[in-house]
């Protein structure tokens, strides 16, 4: 008994873009109108593939002519038995063949219902509020309404633009825009970085640590990397390891570029890392050092300066 055969055309990302229902056991695939499934791909022959289903349900694919081979996993074939998960490539087109007996998994838990606009709006409101407070805490001149409005609009615009770009990429490569999820990630990353940098600077101040203060920006790259990873996962949740690897390399490159830049500026006389006193004295955690302890550190600096001198002396 002839079964129903489904031909599924796949996108580059492996998503089904078209699905054709055909009556078995034999059918033709090609660009011509004699085909059962017509593929508008200039690299596909008018009569490209023959598909035959045997009585035992096995599906045999054959090239219709010598000029119309197909590939499986990049391997050129003229004839092959395929199952429902085998992806064939003809010309630029990827496709797979399933019959009605193909077993699909049970329904997954409903993870994503509707975008949670209310929660998202609350998150955005928090972000704007935090942004406004930061502006207010750093306000040392005459307060100007325009500054706050510009700050808010700038943040909102930036987040929308960022999420919009990811949604666009998502739509192109993943099939769906998923704007709300991208926006959620962007707002989350903003909040995480704001919180992180506040804490890091507060700690740098409270411990008087120029080293911490100078390296706060490293966190920026890490947060950015994590956000990009999440955006990519939203587009297509696959190749997590590869993505992690690529992003890690980019993040490290970013950090290295920043550190190298500072090291070079330092060579040109830029100010060394100093923990700025941007917090009220109440944030002090470290015990005040005695004069002797401080000058012991000062004396310690001397050896480094002498080494610098030795390394950099221009006179014979």
């Amino acid at each position, binding site marked *: 008994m002839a079964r129903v055969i489904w031909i599924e055309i796949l996108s580059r990302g492996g998503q089904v873009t078209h699905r054709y229902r055909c009556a078995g056991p034999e059918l033709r695939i090609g660009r011509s109108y004699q085909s059962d499934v017509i593929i508008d791909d200039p690299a596909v022959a008018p009569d490209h593939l023959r598909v035959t289903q045997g009585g035992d349900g096995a599906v045999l694919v054959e090239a219709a002519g010598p000029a119309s081979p197909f590939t499986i996993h990049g391997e050129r074939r003229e004839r092959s038995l395929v199952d429902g998960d085998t992806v064939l490539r003809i010309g630029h087109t990827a496709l797979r063949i399933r019959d009605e007996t193909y077993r699909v998994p049970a329904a997954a838990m409903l993870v994503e219902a509707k975008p949670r606009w209310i929660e998202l709006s609350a998150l955005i409101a928090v972000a704007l509020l935090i942004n406004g407070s930061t502006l*207010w*805490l*750093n*306000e*040392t*001149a*005459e307060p100007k309404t325009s500054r706050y409005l510009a700050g808010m609009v700038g943040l909102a615009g930036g987040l929308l633009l960022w999420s919009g770009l990811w949604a666009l990429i998502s739509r192109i490569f993943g099939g769906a825009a998923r704007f709300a999820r991208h926006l959620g990630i962007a707002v989350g990353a903003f909040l995480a970085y704001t919180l992180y940098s506040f804490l890091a600077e507060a700690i740098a101040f409270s411990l*008087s640590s*120029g080293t911490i203060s100078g390296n706060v920006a490293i966190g920026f790259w890490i947060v950015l990397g994590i956000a990009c990873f999440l955006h990519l996962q939203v587009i297509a949740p696959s190749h997590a390891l590869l993505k992690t690897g690529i992003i890690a390399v980019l993040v490290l490159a970013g950090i290295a570029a920043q550190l190298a830049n500072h090291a070079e500026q*330092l*060579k*040109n*006389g830029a*100010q*060394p*890392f*100093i*923990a*700025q*006193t*941007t*917090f*009220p*004295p*109440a944030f*002090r955690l*470290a*015990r*005040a*050092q*005695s*004069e002797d*302890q*401080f*000058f012991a*550190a*000062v*004396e*310690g*600096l*001397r050896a*480094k*300066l*002498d080494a*610098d*001198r030795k*390394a*950099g*002396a*221009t*006179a*014979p």
Partner: protein
Amino acid sequence: MIGRNMVLVPRFALVSLLAAAMLCRGAPASAQDTRAAGQPGGETVHPAAPVSSTAERIFEAARGKLLQIRTELAASGRQTTLGSAFLVDGDLAITNYHVVSQFVLEPDLYRLEYFTAGSDHGSLQVLGFDIADDLALVKIDRAQPEHFVFDPRKLDEMIKGEQLYAMGNPLDIGFAIVEGTYNGLVERSYTPHIHFSGAVNPGMSGGPAVTSNGDVVGINVATRLDGELVSFLVPAQYAVALLGAAPRDPPKPKALRAELARQIAARQTALYAEVETAGLQAANFGPYAAGESKADWFTCWGQTNAGQAPKPRAIVETTNCSSESDIYIADDLHIGRLYVTHSYIRSADLNAFQFATYVATQNGLQWPARWREKWYTPPRCTQDFMRGGAADQAPPVEAIWCARAYKDFPDLFDVALTTVTQDRGTETLVSRLSFQAVSYEAAQTLGKQFIAALRWHE
């Protein structure tokens, strides 16, 4: 402010070669010294001469004793700087160190040449210099028949208003004589300079300033750009001393460079020892008292933002004290100036967070001079939260110590010590002490003095 616009006159430092005999003070008596006696240009009296004829007579007598010194590129012979000099004995002439500094620092790149008023010229060599007073003793390739003599009077025997005549070759347009007035020693200056009210122009550096007798009382060295006719002379006594102390055989370039490092270290050690001995006096800023140097060559200026519109949200009252004690080493290196800055800041209507942000904008590290890779290692800093005295006397401070070393001069550093009081949320004193070319020990000693002086004043 003072001194900021003071420039040396090197680009065209004109050295008039004044062939004065140097025997007067401490100079070893040499055979030529006797020539000083009976020197023309002074003893002849022209009783009824109008003023202009004095200058005429002096210049006539000085013509043959003046030199122009050119620093030239060794490779192409093109001149790079011009200055003046004056003969003091046979083939010896005095000029400014800054006239010959390029050669001293880079003997492979530059060479020196002299020209007389009669367009005679030849080579010259540097015998020695006095870096603290910006003088150099040079030897020309052949002895000249005439030379200047130094005025035997001490400076305190001179009275303000005495007519002096500065000579040199301003701007390379020909030897000239300039009439001006002696106005005593410059006040509030660590380096002794005569205040000469007359037009000293670039190119005249190293030239002599003489009395109406033609005796040298000073050497043209610098002028103030923000004034009119405010010029400076190095008192002649330092030239006399240099003439006595410098060797007669030209040292090798390497030895000159070593001598430079030695003199800088000695001069700076003396300077900082004086700062230390002078000690600090307390000045009050709101609830705080902080130290200012008692040395009388410090000048302090105050400023505030209180009058600005719109009304500032934190009031800053700043006192900037700086010492008139820098010396010329190279065109891009003047060292020896000290800065003490106190900024008392209190919030008008900023909260503690806003105030802290405001304060942070005030305490960035500012080096007293532009950073140059050629001279300095990259700066390094250490900082900590500290308390200099007992808890009931001194406020806790954030202390930031930044230093950079001089690449070519051993044990010399630039140091900046900044303290920001950390006892109140909306009121603070930001203090900074900056030294140039200081030994690390002296910087620490002075830094401790400075921190010890920081207290609550009630």
